[in-house]
């Protein structure tokens, strides 16, 4: 078995939009005021009565396999580590903002304090390396998030993906995200 390839499954049906994940993320990663690594957007109501629906959208880094933020970085500060997680090397980053404009998912921001590009890391340094789950996954009260190794077909995440239909945001861009989404099964056409 080669390297791990971490991914996350987000069940938008189980999600209740409570933002506990967002708060846990802020605390765990000491995210500065006014910026977010993670939000859960509640979109809707969509459609026409009585076929209404509310969608939940996880707004965060989707951990692309072919991440547009990586090749554009002029110094190589933006990189994908051996476990598939896209990271920023704070020491190499000059804060040019190229990766922020290149990201189709608006996952990145220039940190107002350090002037460096920052984003969700799946809590790699502070939790995953210690065999803990990312903060958002641990805190989720409805188990809407499953985290694990996509290369291990026996992992909880792989088993869950096999059981049901999933989508990836903006699949047409060929970024191949490792944030995998179970789309809304309820309500109207759109």
């Amino acid at each position, binding site marked *: 078995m080669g390297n791990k390839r971490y991914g996350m499954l987000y069940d938008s049906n189980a999600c209740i939009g409570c933002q506990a994940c967002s708060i846990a993320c802020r605390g765990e990663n000491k995210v500065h005021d006014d910026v977010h690594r993670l939000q859960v957007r509640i979109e809707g109501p969509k459609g026409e009565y009585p076929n209404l629906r509310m969608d939940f959208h996880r707004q965060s880094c989707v951990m692309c396999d072919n991440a547009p933020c990586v090749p554009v970085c002029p110094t190589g500060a933006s990189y994908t580590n051996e476990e598939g997680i896209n990271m920023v090397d704070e020491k190499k980053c000059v804060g*040019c903002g190229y990766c922020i404009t290149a990201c189709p998912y608006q996952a990145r921001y220039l940190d107002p304090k350090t002037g460096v590009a920052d984003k969700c890391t799946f809590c790699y340094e502070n939790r995953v390396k210690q065999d803990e789950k990312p903060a958002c996954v641990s805190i989720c009260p409805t188990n809407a998030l499953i985290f694990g190794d996509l290369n291990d077909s026996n992992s909880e995440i792989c088993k869950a993906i096999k059981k049901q239909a999933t989508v990836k945001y903006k699949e047409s861009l060929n970024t191949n995200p490792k944030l995998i989404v179970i789309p809304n099964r309820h309500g109207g056409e759109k």
Partner: protein
Amino acid sequence: MDQIWGNTTQYTEIVWGWQIAVYLFLAGLSAGALISAILVKWRSNLAEGYDGIMKAGALVALPAISLGLALLVVDLGKPFSFWLLMFHFNLKSVMSIGVILLSVYSGLMTVFAAVIFKEKFAENSLTAWAFRPFLFIVEWFEGLGKWFDWVMVVLAIGIAAYTGFLLSALVAKPLLNVPVLPLLFLVSGISSGVAGCIAVSILFFKQSVQESNLKYLLSLDTKLIPTELFILFVMFIGLFNMGGQYAIVGQQALTIGVWAKVFWGGIIGIGLIGPLLVVTFSLHQYEQSDHAPIPVGSLLINSALVLTGVILLRFYMLYAGQIFI
């Protein structure tokens, strides 16, 4: 509006603001002015000394690129770490290629300006002590003649075009992610350089300007402007034909809010139709006649219109490109 998921300012904020728009303009202006100067050099008799247009070219190109570089550095999140860009290269990144191009270009641009103003610098008592030790380098480059010119032309084309590739590499921004953008920036950059050279040469170096050269540049600009109009046409038709988000964004950029007004009024109206009208009704007569005096007023108005249009084009592409996604 307060949403439970919090502030969304970071998702609508413009990442690259006016500093970058002005930089894109200055890079194109510098490259265009240098190309104009060299085109004039190739059709002049150098035994009569450098044409005023060449002096104007050097006088525009060097400060423009210097100021542009300063803006780039100031705009960084960590301005004092800009040196990292010169020690870590990533040839997959257009920006990193740009850093290499800019380093070579701005260095050789300084030499080019030194060649043109050699006598001035070597004889002026304020600059002579600093300039004379380097005179042999300047003269070596001067001796290269056309070889040096060609290197500079290729570099200038690289600078003007790379500013387009920098933006067209962004898959996330449909308005910018179009193949013709580098060509658009190259043509409009050269156009701005021509306009800058004309204006500065008749303001400061009128005695040494050869009118045949002035007319040559003027006629070049009247060819570049319709070319630019055509490229813009191709770009938007292309966006519509690509469909999906490209078509939506193309339509938004032409119809919504202040940036649509900037496009139609500023870029098309002031920047492209305006100069064509000035040329048709005022400068055409001068171009055709052998005896008419230099129409300084009309030329300056023409240059001001072109430069306004080109700077607005950079602002428009950068802002509309980031807003409509």
